[in-house]
């Protein structure tokens, strides 16, 4: 206890009397180390989280309802949808009918009937345009043309991956139609049924699921696909708060709705490989950040070592007048703790006060996502604890090395 008191006094006084600029520089280094530890993995994980967020916002929502594994569609869809009204946490939802068809363009201008048709196999979504827009803001993703009007029929929205001019930047991987713009007529064929549609708009998103889709009103979908049972393929639900999705999903399952369909939260629906990538990126970021920790711990070691070495005589005298070695070691550990705490505190302030909100507003533009800075407070705390402990050790070792030297040799400056 006495050693702790004296250690604290000595440590704080050394910090207090140290050069302002030297102290600031050390704290700055610690702050950079902290940022390195948080930001590198934060950006890497943020890439995936940004992509996840985009999928959540533009495609899947907070709760996803799909057909049970042994069924083709959601059973009793109308009953199911009526039940959704009982959940006040649900903000909006969209019912989707999905099917595959063949989209053909430029067939009217086609002269050589033996030549290849300008067609692409497409995924067709039958939606209520108003509900879908309230769910995914689809109307804001238009790069050409206009959004579907709920009162009109015979119009289609096409994702950019089906349009050659947009998709060719990715090489030849997508099945496309060429030279299609709003106002052009295309033909959708499903089995024996064909129907002409006027292209209303072209949509582009960071989410592949949207780029690789076409949208038509649900009534027309049911006619074209001969779906008279009104059982949908997917219902995507948005809750008032994203975090409410588990409560809603569990309540729906408890009420027996899972007898009609498979009910999953967004998180439950994530494929395992995505979770693995996130974990790997986090690990990778932490490993890169660890290099920073090593550099910082060496910096602290050198600073404390030089500091203790230059005060070797005073350390000897303190021991000479009866001050325990422990107290002297504590004094230097206090200094290291001060540097680690101050640097981390500044780093945390900068991270949560500036960087996270900044990247939230100005995401890093990646082709597949809007990269944010992911800084989960819990993992930040653990990283801080690791940084703190390593810094303490880096402060303790040089103090221990100097303080354990022979008292008289220290006083007399002998080796």
């Amino acid at each position: 206890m006495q050693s702790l008191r004296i250690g604290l006094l000595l440590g704080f006084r050394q910090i207090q009397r140290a050069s302002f600029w030297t102290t600031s520089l050390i704290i700055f280094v610690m702050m950079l180390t902290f940022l390195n530890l948080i930001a590198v993995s934060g950006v890497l994980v943020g890439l995936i989280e940004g992509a996840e967020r985009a999928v959540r916002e533009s495609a899947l929502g907070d709760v996803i309802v799909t057909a049970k594994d042994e069924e083709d569609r959601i059973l009793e869809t109308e009953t199911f949808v009526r039940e959704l009204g009982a959940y006040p946490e649900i903000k909006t939802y969209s019912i989707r009918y999905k099917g595959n068809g063949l989209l053909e363009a430029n067939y009217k201008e086609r002269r050589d009937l033996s030549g290849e048709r300008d067609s692409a196999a497409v995924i067709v979504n039958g939606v209520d345009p108003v509900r879908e827009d309230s769910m995914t803001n689809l109307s804001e993703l238009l790069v050409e043309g206009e959004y579907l009007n709920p009162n009109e029929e015979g119009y289609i929205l096409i994702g950019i991956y089906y349009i050659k001019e947009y998709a060719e930047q990715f090489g030849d991987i997508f099945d496309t139609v060429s030279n299609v713009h709003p106002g052009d007529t295309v033909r959708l064929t499903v089995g024996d049924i064909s129907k002409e549609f006027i292209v209303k708009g072209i949509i582009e998103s960071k989410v592949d699921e949207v780029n690789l889709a076409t949208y038509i009103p649900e009534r027309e979908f049911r006619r074209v696909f001969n779906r008279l049972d009104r059982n949908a393929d997917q219902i995507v639900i948005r809750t008032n708060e994203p975090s409410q999705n588990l409560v809603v999903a569990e309540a729906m399952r408890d009420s027996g709705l899972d007898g009609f369909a498979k009910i999953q939260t967004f998180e439950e629906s994530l494929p395992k490989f995505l979770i693995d990538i996130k974990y790997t990126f986090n690990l990778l970021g932490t490993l890169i950040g660890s290099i920073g920790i090593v550099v910082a711990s060496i910096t602290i070691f050198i600073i404390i070592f030089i500091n203790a070495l230059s005060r070797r005589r005073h350390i000897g005298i303190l021991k000479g007048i009866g001050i325990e070695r422990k107290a002297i070691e504590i004094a230097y550990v206090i200094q290291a703790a001060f540097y680690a705490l101050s640097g981390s505190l500044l780093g945390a302030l900068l991270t949560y006060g500036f960087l996270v909100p900044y990247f939230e507003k100005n995401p890093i533009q990646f082709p597949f996502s809007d990269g944010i800075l992911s800084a989960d407070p819990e993992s930040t705390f653990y990283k801080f604890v690791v940084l703190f402990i390593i810094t303490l050790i880096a402060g303790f070792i040089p103090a221990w090395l100097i303080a354990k030297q022979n008292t008289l040799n220290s006083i007399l400056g002998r080796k």
Partner: protein
Amino acid sequence: MNIIEAKNIHREFGKDDLITHVLKGIDISIAEGEFVAIMGKSGAGKSTLMYQLSALDVPTEGEIIVDGQSIVPFNEKERTAFRLNTLGYVFQDYALVPDLSARENVMMPLLMKGMSWEAAKIKSDSSLDEVGLKDKYYNLPGELSGGEQQRVAVARALAGQPKIIFADEPTANLDSVSGQQIIDLLTCLHKQNGQTIVMVTHEEEYAKPCDRIFYMEDGLITDIKNRTQ
């Protein structure tokens, strides 16, 4: 009654063929309450002797009993505790902690003894008052003159009311006036408190107030002079 009793003290430095024999079998006894000086030329071994008696160093051979305890077998921790509880030191060049104020420097050993912060502060202030530094409690060592710093060192040595005070050439870095002031201060405090003081000095003048003077030469005590002589 002797508070320090040392027999056949040898101290060697170095290894193999390069051994330097600094103390060559010293016997010395110092009575409780005595003010003694150890004098001699440079290299005579006076400081080395003081380090052995004050538990700062371990003799190569011999036995030392201080305040009834044989200190030679002590380990590092026991020596530190012994120095804290029984001894006080005044070093040649003040040896104050530069980051601590005069008051805090004096408080150090008191806090280590387990005294509360408040009690240590009061005790420290009264010790500084005793050495004439009433208005210098908050000054850092760098803001004090050499004489004042040595007074703080004396106050630190006295504050814990140790049984023995060791002073290693306390006037060496001071001008003659400041040096004399320190000697007067030690003499006065010795009279007031009756503590045993062992002082190493090489100036006869400063040894005048001492009860006994031990003269050393080449690692041996060659003469002992009583004040009365």
